[in-house]
């Protein structure tokens, strides 16, 4: 049997490629995440700090007096106050240095945190040192906007690299200690060194050993590497699933070609089990070969990616990664070949004597199962098609989508029957190439379906996420349009999701021409009702924002924030609460418990809870994430705001459409990455198409010979194969797009709580997919078509 494999070498190459790609995806993911986790663990953390005292998460501060008191404690040999404050660094070109602003400013000290790379330490209010990553160098003038909006200027006198302690980000710039203390007025943490230090519990101080903080870093790195790995492995699983289709299809074809051989084996006394084992043995050999190449490729790719992405890369190839590669490669191949092995074993010995020997079909079970799955899935989706879903029905709805999708895959060979009339019509109007190629494609609908199933899965995923994404984009857009009047000007921090400097709201209010202004303090909190806690989003706003700078339609109850929360109706349904029920929001140290006074029909792009800012914890009130403003002449107000913040690169001023655009840009980048990941699956599917075509061409050598003898040019033979390829790819593409858009509709329904068919069809992605399928069809046919066109007429006719 292994000898058989060698005889089919050419045909197996594509299958091997499918296994290799899938395995390489898994292994490289593994290697990358292991190396990243190890890399973080190996970074140069400061290990010379014994105890760290930090102020509570929010609220109270560590003052210089606290530093003095801690320095006096028995056993303390050294106490250093580490300063940190919001600082937005503006480069010489007037542009913001990219990166977060929070805690970006600090004070110089000799704790060993800083390592000068150039110049000297800052020594007075007019000097700063900057991190090497900022791109500034000594002699430059640094312009810095502080947390309260104040601007300071200083000359860069040195650049540094930074050693971290615990989970902290390296600061961007450092003044000398006195200047920094004057600027920030408080310590972020106090570091103690010494022996047997016992810090009294006080004012909610958080006291940790330095070692514990560093352990946290490693744990965090591992956790994040693990979660990256898990999400990448999900994509790898899709690639493997698609690879499985390719493998299964190849084995079906190989078994079909060798029916007589199996029959002969059975006739001379081989048991069914022996035949089955022989086929599975082939699969195992192929799987091991694929896994070996794939693992090697995966290790190479993973290490390459690590080397590219990290300066001080730490390579880690765990035995587990290699084991996973083999398990996945061999497992998927053997499982995919199992059906074929069973069918090979079911060949009757008498088939050896018949010319029309066929592999016994298993059609009826398949059709029954497919219809059952499709109906069950549709029923599950239909049952949960209503609005305001709770968590269970969301899960049921999504599962229904998956089940129906499986049903479509199982039924695909029967569904491919619809191609027959299409091909018939095509053949009537097209030339001989269309007729021959089209009919060849539907000659064996099972094979066409199996080949295009791989494409179907890959494309359907792309289209499902495109539908979800496009729907989200238009939902974000329409939500913003519904809640932010055209006349409102919006201000946000230039550093992404961070809060604005604290002076912005007042400055907006003081801007001439602005008569209405309100601020939004948006964040993630935990909500508790009847003992059940879950995550949610909250927006603390001034109650008079509604109707002036913001619109928020309240469908049930009132929008009276003075009296309680206004909550999204989806969210209320998920929590199982209604008007008048009290719920508790947990802001960390403080909680806010109020009744629900109104419900708004939201999309989940909006805050789920609206809260009166007066009822929010004091520290939260200062975390202004957006400012909304308008005036009697909105255009004049906007122009005035533009002018007022022209010298503030840390603040961005938007009109409504600009805001939508800025939000969507990031989101679409995320989608693009997702498409690329599913792209791997599509590539594997293409190998499957090439494989099927090559086998078809090989099987039809004699036909091609006759065709050529009768006067078909090479070009026509090539076109025939290309057409067959186009039909296969077109079918996979159209079916994939339809399944994908429907599944996308279900996803957006259960994830965003919107009506089932209120979707935005991603025409752009569909167009690209269709064009891509045509391209793939043409490309996949190149090699098989060449082989077919160069068939030697005489030997093809002589062979039987």
């Amino acid at each position, binding site marked *: 049997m292994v000898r058989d494999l060698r005889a089919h070498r050419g045909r197996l190459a594509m299958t091997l490629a499918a296994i290799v790609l899938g395995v390489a995806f898994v292994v490289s993911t593994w290697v990358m995440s292991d190396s990243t986790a190890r890399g973080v663990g190996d970074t140069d953390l400061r290990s010379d700090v014994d105890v760290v005292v930090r102020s509570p998460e929010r609220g109270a501060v560590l003052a210089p007096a606290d530093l003095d008191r801690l320095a006096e404690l028995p056993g303390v040999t050294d106490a250093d106050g580490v300063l940190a404050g919001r600082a937005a660094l503006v480069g010489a070109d007037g542009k913001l240095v990219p990166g977060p602003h929070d805690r970006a400013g600090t004070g110089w000290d000799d704790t060993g945190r800083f390592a000068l790379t150039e110049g000297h330490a800052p020594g007075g209010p007019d000097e700063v040192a900057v991190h090497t990553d900022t791109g500034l160098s000594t002699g430059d003038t640094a312009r810095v906007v502080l947390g309260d909006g104040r601007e300071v200027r200083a000359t860069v006198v040195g650049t540094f690299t930074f050693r971290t302690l615990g989970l902290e980000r390296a600061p961007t710039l450092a003044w000398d200690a006195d200047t920094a203390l004057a600027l920030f007025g408080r310590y972020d943490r106090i570091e103690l060194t010494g022996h047997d230090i016992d810090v009294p519990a006080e004012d909610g101080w958080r006291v940790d050993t330095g070692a514990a903080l560093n352990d946290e870093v490693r744990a965090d790195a591992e956790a994040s590497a693990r979660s990256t790995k898990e999400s990448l492995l999900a994509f790898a699983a899709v690639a493997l699933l698609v690879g499985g289709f390719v493998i299964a299809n190849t084995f079906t074809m190989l078994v079909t070609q060798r029916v007589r051989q199996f029959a002969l084996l059975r006739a001379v006394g081989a048991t069914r089990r022996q035949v089955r084992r022989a086929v599975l043995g082939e699969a195992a050999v192929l799987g091991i070969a694929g896994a070996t190449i794939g693992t090697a490729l995966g290790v190479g790719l993973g290490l390459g990616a690590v080397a590219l992405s990290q300066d001080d890369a730490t390579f880690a190839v765990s035995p587990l990664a290699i084991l996973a590669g083999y398990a996945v490669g061999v497992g998927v191949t053997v499982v995919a070949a199992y059906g074929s092995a069973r069918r090979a074993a079911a060949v009757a010995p008498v088939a050896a004597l018949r010319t029309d020997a066929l592999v016994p079909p298993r059609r009826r079970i398949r059709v029954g199962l497919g219809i059952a799955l499709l109906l069950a899935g549709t029923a599950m989706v239909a049952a949960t098609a209503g609005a305001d879903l709770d968590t269970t029905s969301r899960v049921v709805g999504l599962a229904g989508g998956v089940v129906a999708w499986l049903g479509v895959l199982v039924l695909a060979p029967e569904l491919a029957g619809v191609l027959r009339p299409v091909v018939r019509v095509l053949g009537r109007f097209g*030339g*001989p190439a269309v*007729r*021959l190629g089209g*009919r*060849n494609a539907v*000659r064996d609908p099972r094979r066409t379906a199996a080949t295009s199933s791989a494409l179907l899965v890959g494309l359907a995923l792309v289209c499902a996420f495109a539908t979800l994404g496009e729907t989200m984009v238009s939902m974000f857009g329409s939500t913003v349009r519904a809640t932010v009047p055209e006349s409102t000007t919006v201000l946000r921090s230039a550093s992404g999701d961070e809060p604005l400097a604290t002076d912005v709201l007042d400055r907006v209010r003081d801007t001439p021409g602005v008569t209405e202004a309100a601020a939004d303090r948006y964040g993630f909190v935990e909500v508790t009702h009847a003992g059940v806690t879950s995550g949610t989003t909250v927006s603390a706003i001034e109650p008079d924002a509604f109707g002036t700078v913001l619109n928020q339609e309240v469908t049930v109850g009132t929008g009276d924030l003075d009296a309680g929360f206004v909550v999204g109706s989806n969210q209320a349904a998920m929590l199982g609460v209604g008007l008048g029920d009290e719920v508790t929001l947990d802001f960390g140290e403080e909680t806010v418990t109020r009744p629900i006074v109104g419900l708004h029909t939201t999309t989940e792009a909006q805050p789920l809870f609206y809260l009166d800012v007066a009822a929010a914890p004091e520290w939260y009130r200062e975390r202004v994430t957006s400012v909304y403003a308008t005036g009697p002449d909105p255009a004049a107000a906007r122009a005035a705001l533009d002018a007022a913040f022209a010298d503030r690169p840390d603040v961005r001023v938007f009109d409504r459409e600009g805001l939508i655009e800025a939000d969507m840009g990031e989101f679409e980048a995320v989608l693009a990455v997702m498409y690329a990941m599913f792209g791997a699956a599509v590539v594997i599917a293409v190998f499957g198409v090439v494989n099927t075509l090559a086998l078809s061409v090989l099987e039809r050598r*004699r*036909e091609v010979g*006759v*065709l*050529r*003898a*009768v*006067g*078909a*040019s*090479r070009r*026509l033979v090539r076109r025939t194969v290309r057409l067959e390829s186009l039909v296969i790819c077109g079918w996979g593409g159209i079916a994939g797009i339809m399944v994908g858009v429907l599944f996308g509709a279900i996803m957006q329904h259960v994830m965003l709580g919107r009506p089932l068919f209120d979707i935005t069809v991603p025409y752009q992605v569909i167009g690209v997919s269709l064009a891509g399928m045509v391209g793939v069809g043409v490309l996949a046919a190149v090699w098989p078509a060449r082989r077919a066109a160069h068939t030697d*007429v*005489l030997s093809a*006719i002589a062979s*039987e």
Partner: protein
Amino acid sequence: MCGTPRPATLIAVTTTTSPAASAVGLTKVYGSGDSRVAALDDVTVDFAAGRFTAIMGPSGSGKSTLMHCVAGLDEPTSGRVWLGDVELSALADDDLTALRRDRVGFVFQAFNLLPTLTAWENITLPLDLAGKRTDQRLADTIVRAVGLGDRLHHRPSQLSGGQQQRVACARAMVTGPDVVFADEPTGALDSRASADLLGLLRRGVDELGQTVVMVTHEPAAAAYADRVLFLADGRLVDALDAPTADRVLDRMKSLERVS
């Protein structure tokens, strides 16, 4: 076709005196050194237009090779071949393809038809490939002669072996080619189906003025021809006009005795 008057245009073809196909000094060598086989050794032959020629000879004597070379399916090692007034050795693949399509018809021993096309589509395939419209009268005549009746729109897998060969025969004649080549067309048929097929070829010659060259090893089949050529070891060794099965058999026996 029985009883149909001959179309005037076709009579002209039968009266042409120049051969429909000819070869001069045709040699075909396979392999080299020890494994060198001369399948054809300096063969010079004319196939008269409007006549039915049979080629006979022992297995391996070069019958198929001769046919393939004259039909433009294979390239001779040396020598020259003409189809009508076209010399084949001068042609590139595309021109050869067009020539096969327009001026040559083929019938092989078996598996002549494309399984995805119906009988009718198989018959008209060469016209289809050339992008020509079917000459309805010629097609009707041929179809009636093939005698498929309502099976005309069935796939080959639903036809008997004899029916399939007759469809192949009709396809070979539908373009009105210079020559129809048939390589043991009855090789896989029983005697009844063989007789039908040979009758069809014969009527093509008699009634449509077609030129037919047929390779066979059955004396009874050769008896349908106007002239029989005998090949042995790649050489033309004998010829027989107005053959009967008995005379062919006698001649073959005597040839075997000689060699």
